[in-house]
């Protein structure tokens, strides 16, 4: 019983997160402006981080936790650098 409930919930959650990633990616490709693309990339990073956490629950492996922490750090650094670039036109002044 508990296996059936959790398997169903994990599958639905993964499908929802996959659709969310796809929507973020469509917005990232469409734009229309550079800030929309950067925000799309940031949303994509957050969604993939959550997807990895759900993978961790699915497989029962805590290794996925470290991976999602690293993805969160990379996403933050990437978005800050890109936002800085949008503001000034150069990353390092």
């Amino acid at each position, binding site marked *: *019983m*508990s*296996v059936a*409930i*959790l*398997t*169903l*919930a*994990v599958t*639905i*959650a*993964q499908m*929802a*997160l996959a*659709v*969310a*990633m796809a*929507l*973020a990616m*469509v*917005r990232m490709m469409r734009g229309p*402006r*550079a*800030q*929309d693309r*950067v*925000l*799309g990339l*940031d*949303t994509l990073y*957050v*969604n993939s*981080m*959550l997807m990895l*956490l*759900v993978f*961790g*629950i*699915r*497989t*029962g492996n*805590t290794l996925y*936790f470290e991976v*999602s*922490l690293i993805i*969160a*750090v990379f996403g*933050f650094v990437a*978005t*800050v650098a890109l*936002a*800085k670039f*949008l*503001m000034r036109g150069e990353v390092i002044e």
Partner: protein
Amino acid sequence: MSHIAELPLWASVLVSIFLLIGAGLTLIGSFGFYRLGSFYDRLHAPTLGTSWGAAAILIASMICFSVLQSRPVFHELLIGIFVTITTPVTLMLLGRAALYRDRAEGNPEVPAMDPPKGVIEQGAAVDE
């Protein structure tokens, strides 16, 4: 998925509820991000995923591993704290960059620049 069989019923129900809440909120946030009309509206939508969307999935993960390893596992808190602190920083930077770009182009939809900032007052604060 053999490890799931070790979970008692109450734990799997709790984990499922939190997973569905988190994934649902994230999906709604991304859907809003896809659908909304202007950039400043879109700025609000992903916060659904990063506030309670992420929190619910992290709580689900904490419950799952705490029950599986029969000891409190709460290192997921680190991701929660990290996401809570970094999301406002990125959104604020992006919002200000967008505002700056729109103002530089003279877009009439954004409020105009305030009157010149108090350069003298700021200079005095630095000297202290």
